[in-house]
């Protein structure tokens, strides 16, 4: 028995018009200051004002949102009493909105209660509509909310998950992504690529997710370079938006693993863009999963995936095909000027934090979803190899 959870999904040009059909009248919008500055909030408010929707905006979402931010937004939300919550922004706004939605509906719960096996019974007070303004996180489709918590030893990222946190509706309107700057297009695009690549070999892999991942890869491979080169190409923007969403549906139902464990820890430690923190490890974690005594299944899945997507030839051996897939990831990294780990942090920074980072990787629930298990020594080695741009040979 397994599940495939998905929000109602509206996509393509003018997808925002879906709001016309909603009867809700009090709308709590969760977003960040950048979204206001770039005029995207205005696009949304222009849409809902004629619908006689009353709205209140919380724009205090920061990158790597902290639990304090969630508690603050929840307080405002509870006072305002909306029947609709709209998350407008990148992954951070959606992570905040999901958690706020739960805490608003269930004031008896706290952030630590967001684990997968209790009944939340959400939706009694409000619906959650997610409108992504980047093409990568897939957070509009998934059950996870990534929350940064301060601890004595530094910041950690809590990966809180619950199937009821999946938004009611996801609206994928390319109007919100057409002005993404190059760096953001690259990093969020690589987040999508990491999602689809990790999830097809995870321990929770399933046929439904792989089907989504296949189409998502085809779109990323074709349209990410175009969207990166020419952001005004609306077709490329629309296709990347769909690809990121499909990759979100894929990993949302099959999970990501080592790349996201390594990336979340790196991101929590050095506050780098999420997409680059996971993208930078992607070739290495795939190589790691292709090694070891129990790699056969992974080799076959990744090899076949490479053939189906045209990255490898049908008469290639699966292991060769799988390595061609890794090579294709590296090629795409170059095309979009993806930074290397040594461009993201210094040797001194790595040396100072590597022991602690390896320990934290072990506490990441994602890490346990890997087809090949990794202990703290392996995590350290992958950090080292990635820093040295060295192919995994263990």
């Amino acid at each position, binding site marked *: 028995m397994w599940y495939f959870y998905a929000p109602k999904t509206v996509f393509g040009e003018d997808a925002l018009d879906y709001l016309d059909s909603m009867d809700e009248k009090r709308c709590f919008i969760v977003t960040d200051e950048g979204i206001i500055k770039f005029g995207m909030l205005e696009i949304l408010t222009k849409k809902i004002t004629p619908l006689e929707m009353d709205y209140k905006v919380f724009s205090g979402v920061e990158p790597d949102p902290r639990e304090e931010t969630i508690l603050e937004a929840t307080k405002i939300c509870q006072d305002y009493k909306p029947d609709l919550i709209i998350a407008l922004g990148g992954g951070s706004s959606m992570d905040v909105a999901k958690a706020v939605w739960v805490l608003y509906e269930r004031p008896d719960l706290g952030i*630590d*209660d967001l*684990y997968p*096996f209790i009944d939340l019974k959400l939706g009694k007070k409000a619906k959650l509509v997610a409108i992504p303004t980047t093409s990568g996180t897939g957070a509009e489709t998934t059950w996870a909310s990534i929350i940064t918590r301060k601890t004595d030893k530094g910041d950690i990222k809590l990966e809180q998950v619950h199937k009821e946190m999946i938004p009611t509706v996801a609206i994928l309107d390319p109007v919100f992504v057409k002005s993404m700057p190059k760096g953001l297009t690259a990093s969020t695009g690589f987040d999508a690529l990491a999602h689809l690549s990790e999830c097809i070999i995870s321990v929770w892999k399933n046929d439904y997710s792989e089907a989504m991942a296949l189409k998502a890869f085809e779109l990323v491979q074709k349209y990410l370079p175009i969207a990166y080169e020419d952001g005004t190409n609306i077709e490329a923007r629309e296709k990347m938006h769909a690809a990121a969403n499909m990759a979100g549906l894929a990993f949302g139902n099959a999970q990501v693993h080592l790349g996201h464990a390594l990336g979340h820890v790196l991101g929590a430690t050095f506050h780098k863009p999420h997409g680059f923190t996971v993208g930078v490890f992607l070739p290495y974690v795939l190589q790691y999963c292709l090694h070891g005594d129990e790699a056969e299944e992974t080799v076959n899945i990744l090899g076949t995936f490479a053939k189906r997507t045209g990255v490898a030839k049908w008469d290639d051996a699966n292991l060769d095909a799988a390595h061609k897939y890794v090579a294709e990831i590296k090629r795409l990294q170059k095309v979009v000027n993806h930074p290397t780990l040594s461009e993201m942090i210094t040797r001194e920074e790595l040396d100072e934090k590597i022991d602690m980072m390896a320990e934290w990787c072990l506490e990441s*629930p994602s890490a346990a979803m890997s087809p090949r298990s990794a202990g703290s*020594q392996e995590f350290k080695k992958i950090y080292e190899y990635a820093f040295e741009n060295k192919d995994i040979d263990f």
Partner: protein
Amino acid sequence: MGLLFASPEWVNAYVETVNGSKAYEDAAKTWEGDFVFVITPADNLDHEIRMYIDLYHGKIGPKGARILNEGEEVESEFVYSGPYNNWVKLIEKKVDPIQGLMQGKFKLKGNMGKVMRAVKAAQELVNCVIATDTDLY
């Protein structure tokens, strides 16, 4: 021949396996907390078995591990319970400990957030069952 799953002799062997497991030690380095595992009757198992296990910093903790007597009350931070047939699926790696909870095959009482940060450790505990020569009912 192996030892019968969740028999007192089996628990002793399991304790040795856990204490000797480098992978478990690494994954559970910071873990502190004890469990009662409840195996309810199903398939060939006609009685309930409850096993207490104390886990501390990657080893069996000072309070040890043992099969509880019928009606014996014991305090523990967590209770993980499910029917015997689902324990077999867990041991055969057809479900993992978290998946089992999501599918409703198992129930967990206790701070679930703490358990979610120890998923790897939970998987290693299952690996220790596999590494112990076990006969099923």
